[in-house]
């Protein structure tokens, strides 16, 4: 039983990272109906920026701590937001009225570009993320251990998600985002600046991916330019699982994904880890094609 609980805790920590990445997918899909394949690579860039900034700050201040972590998070989120903005303006905007398949291939092209440019700029070898915070046991409940880092990951993700929820549900900007995701034409008719809202959504999603990159660096210190491919795909699966375009759905999907993955690794075999996500995906698509929380939309003729 205690092993099961331990797996659950590990799974939740992983799952909250998936959830952060999945949120970005869901938001972009919500406003553009585009699977942003480059999202996983933005997460990689987030981790890379975190690596360099973290090292710089630790050298500069001779030590690590919560403030440094916050600084690293902020820089990496800002960089990723900027990157998201550039990508959206240069590559996706010209294709907004093109066939969907073209936009999808462009997204894949950008993903490839970031991966290979990443290998070129950062080098292909894995790097070790500086330990921004000392790890240690936070709580020990009869052998079930909650680590400090796991707790921090969970806390930061939840805080970011609450922030996002607040922006989307309570602000004018969020209202505009929801309107855009409902209909481009209708929102333009009521005077919503479409391009700005889409760019802003992109930036927010990318910032979340950047945060996820830093958090992954904390718990799993090996960062490399190709690290974003699999988590990216799996986070997308998580977004579909919860119902794409649905923000709480992405959270639940991400947590479910993290949990089921750690259970499979813990109780079956790690070689099946990558297949699990997709088995889960096909299974959910067959039963409930719109995802757990999604509304199925019937086609109007």
């Amino acid at each position, binding site marked *: 039983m205690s092993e099961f609980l331990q797996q659950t805790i590990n799974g939740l920590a992983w799952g909250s990272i998936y959830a952060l990445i999945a949120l970005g997918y869901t938001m972009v899909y919500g406003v553009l*109906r585009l*699977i942003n394949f480059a999202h996983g690579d933005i997460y990689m860039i987030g981790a890379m920026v975190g690596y360099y900034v973290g090292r710089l700050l630790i050298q500069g201040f001779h030590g690590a701590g919560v403030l440094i972590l916050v600084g690293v998070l902020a820089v990496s989120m800002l960089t990723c937001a900027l990157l998201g903005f550039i990508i959206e303006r240069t*590559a996706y905007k*010209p*294709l907004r009225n*093109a*066939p*969907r*398949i*073209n*936009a*999808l*291939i*462009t997204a*894949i*092209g*950008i993903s*490839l*570009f970031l*991966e*290979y*440019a990443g290998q*070129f700029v950062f080098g292909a070898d894995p790097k070790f993320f500086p330990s921004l915070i000392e790890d240690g046991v936070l709580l020990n409940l009869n052998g079930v251990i909650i680590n400090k880092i796991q707790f921090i990951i969970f806390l930061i993700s939840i805080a970011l998600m609450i922030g996002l929820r607040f922006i989307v549900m309570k602000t004018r900007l969020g209202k505009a985002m929801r309107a855009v995701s409902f209909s481009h034409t209708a929102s333009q008719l009521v005077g919503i600046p479409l391009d700005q809202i889409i760019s802003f959504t992109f930036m927010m999603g990318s910032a979340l991916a950047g945060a996820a990159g830093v958090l992954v660096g904390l718990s799993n210190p090996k960062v490399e330019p190709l690290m974003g*491919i699999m988590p990216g*795909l799996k986070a*997308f*699966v998580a977004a*579909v699982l919860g119902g794409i375009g649905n923000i709480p759905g992405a959270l639940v999907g991400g947590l479910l994904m993290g949990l089921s993955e750690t259970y499979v690794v813990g109780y079956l075999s790690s*070689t*099946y880890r*990558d*297949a699990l*996500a*997709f*088995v889960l*995906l*096909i299974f959910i*698509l*067959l039963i409930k*094609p719109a995802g757990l929380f999604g509304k199925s939309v019937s*086609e109007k*003729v």
Partner: protein
Amino acid sequence: MILINPYILQIINLIGINAIMAVSLNLITGHTGQFSLGHAGFMALGAYASAAFTVYLHEPIHQLFPSLAPVYWDSFFFMTSLAFGGLVAAFAGVLVGVPTLRLRGDYLAIATLGLGEIIRVVVLNLDFVGGARGFTDIPEYSNFFWIYGLLIVVVICMARMVYSLKGKAFLAVREDEVAAQSVGIHTTQYKIIAFVVGSFWAGVGGGLFAHLNTYLHTNSFGFLKSVEFVVMVVLGGMGSITGALSAAALLTILPELLRIASEWRMIFYALLLIVMMIVWPQGLFGKRELKWRFKKLK
């Protein structure tokens, strides 16, 4: 053939195999409009099935028919092996096509992507085809004549299928599913036909690839490979067979030409991909075919 150096011959052969893959995916994605990101998975199934067939069944079957002359025997055996690979892929196509083809657009793309990954991971865990070590010592049966002979067969098969009266139904499904249904086209049936025929030829292409390379590893059939085939179809122009052929040739040669740029190679490739999609959204040929027209004599 003897005069061409092996490197160029290898590229020519790869162009042929990629062309088979592109034309087979063209039926699914180009003509019927079903976006599949798992074509490499079906290729992997065909490659592994046909390689296992040749490696494990060569001797037992030969003992059944000892009197056949070796020349005919090898060709006949290779043909059976390719057909076996194709059939395994086609069977998998039915198995997954029936439930997943109800999904539309992006969901289908993601489901097929997942499928390709599942196939890859399962093959990776099968020990009798080498597992993570890779499948080695596959006899080298494929050559220029096999590959291009089969390419001609695929192209004829696809052209006969699509440019027939019934073939219009595929296009109807692509253009508007609801409208197609309302004029009495059984859309699911046509989607499944396209999927199964496409998977069959993907399996055959995989078989050819296995017997050309003589070594298989699941890494050669990843997500990127599927993307490459989709790019060939889109770049050629959705639903243009000649377009798919030319794009397959172009996208096989391009990375080789970019080898001069060494480290910058894949960066260029990615940038070209983006630029091509923005500049030529319709692909090289659009929906048209490249044809030689002869003016009618009056």
